[in-house]
């Protein structure tokens, strides 16, 4: 029990091994996914609900709010921030095709600039570039709670069909989810880190947690992401086998 989470200086070898196994499979599976290969996915309730909500929004003209959280791009929180942007992009493209409004809020300025590009492109692709409005994307200062409070104020202005919170959130995710709980709208989303996920899980109607957050693209509208899911699954099996075999060998006295 002594070596729990020990951080050593000689981990470069392990990192190289993981990369050398992961990257080839990743490339192989991504190429296959791009050439049309499909495989069945385990259903995830939150993403299913999100797709339903997006079609409801298209029919009714109601707006879905996407909270993209406060993890900056350029920091190690980039992947989570990117997933918030992916969900926003999905909803923005749908809204743009039906020439409807959308609302994205973020607590980090770098996400704001990236989301502006996504929204502009979505509007242009749908043929209404002049419908792009900077006010559909709002930023409320880089402090998490200022973001939560500001986004809450935006949600007050009109009824929203759903409140989607996906990205990098801390305790402010609970703030935003609970403060809006008296309003009649679906609330769903998710975060990766366990500390925040525990709070979101107890507050939102549907949640994704941990690794599921990073699968948003594959479950929504990016089949090219299926390749990375397949490589993640393969890697997972390899890791489980490594841990099992390693533990058995250690117990028998062959290792460490």
């Amino acid at each position, binding site marked *: 029990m002594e070596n729990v989470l020990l951080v050593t200086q000689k981990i470069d070898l392990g990192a190289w091994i993981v990369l050398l196994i992961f990257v080839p499979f990743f490339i192989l599976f991504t190429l296959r996914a791009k050439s049309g290969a499909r495989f069945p996915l*385990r259903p995830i309730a939150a993403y299913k609900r999100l797709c339903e909500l997006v079609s409801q929004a298209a029919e009714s003209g109601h707006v879905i709010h996407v909270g993209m959280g406060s993890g900056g791009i350029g*920091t190690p929180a980039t992947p989570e921030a990117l997933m918030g942007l992916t969900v926003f992009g999905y909803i923005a493209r749908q809204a743009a095709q039906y020439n409807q409004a959308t609302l994205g809020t973020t607590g980090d300025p770098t996400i704001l600039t990236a989301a502006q590009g996504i929204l502009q492109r979505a509007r242009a692709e749908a043929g209404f570039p002049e419908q792009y409005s900077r006010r559909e994307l709002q930023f409320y200062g880089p402090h998490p709670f200022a973001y939560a409070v500001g986004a809450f104020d935006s949600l007050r202005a009109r009824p929203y069909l759903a409140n989607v919170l996906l990205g990098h959130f801390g305790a402010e995710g609970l703030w935003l989810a609970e403060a809006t709980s008296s309003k009649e709208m679906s609330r769903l989303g998710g975060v990766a880190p366990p500390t925040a996920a525990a709070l979101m899980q107890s507050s939102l109607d549907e949640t994704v947690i941990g690794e599921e957050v990073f699968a948003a693209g594959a479950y929504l509208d990016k089949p090219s992401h299926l390749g990375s899911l397949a490589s993640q699954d393969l890697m997972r099996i390899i890791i489980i086998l490594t841990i099992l075999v390693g533990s058995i060998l250690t117990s028998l006295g062959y290792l460490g």
Partner: protein
Amino acid sequence: MLETLANVMNALPAGTASTIGTWVAALLTLAVLSFIFGENPAFRLAEYLFVGIAAGYAGALAWTQVLWPRAKLFLANPQAYWYYGLFFALGLLLLTRGVRSLSTLGNLPLGVLFGTGAGLALGGALTGSLVPQIEASVVSLSPADYGQGLVGWAYAIDAFILLIGTIAVLSAFHFTGKGQGAWSGFWHGLLRILQGAGRGFIMVAFGALLAGATLSFFAALQSRLAFLLRDWIKLFGNMGL
């Protein structure tokens, strides 16, 4: 104007600023807490002030802590700090996002941000989480490694739970759905059992984290009430000390 304001504040008798401050802070605290009785104008005012102050504070820090020190270094010695100049230029490109016709110029600095961020996240996840966590998950299940008799067995059982728990939680995230064939049926049957156990373990962790968060948030409430009741109206000033 700011200087006169600062002068005026300095000229006031000692303690005035802190007395005013305590009152302002107390009223703002009350305004925010009033949210529990529902929406009201006081809360909205506090909300808007908070967003404004937080944004202004962050803006000031960005200037005094990030931009200005680096700009000074670059201006003093452009050869040694050429990269600051480069990033300042990229930063200016980022600002073009505000102008619709030039907006695509912002893609270049965003490329830097996304690329660097992905590299940092990848390196961090590999060397900081994945590899050390795999190493730490490999534990001995032999009681002899932990001690004599019952103690050794107890630790070995702990190690076993730890091992099974980690594997179960990990497999709870498996994405591939059920395919066809006998092998797939067997494999997914096994996976379903593990996933059920994994969800259970996750809920234990979430329960502990929820309890911890409750304590933290409650401590924040305690400290605000202590400020109101003891520092502001001094109702319970001498209690317990």
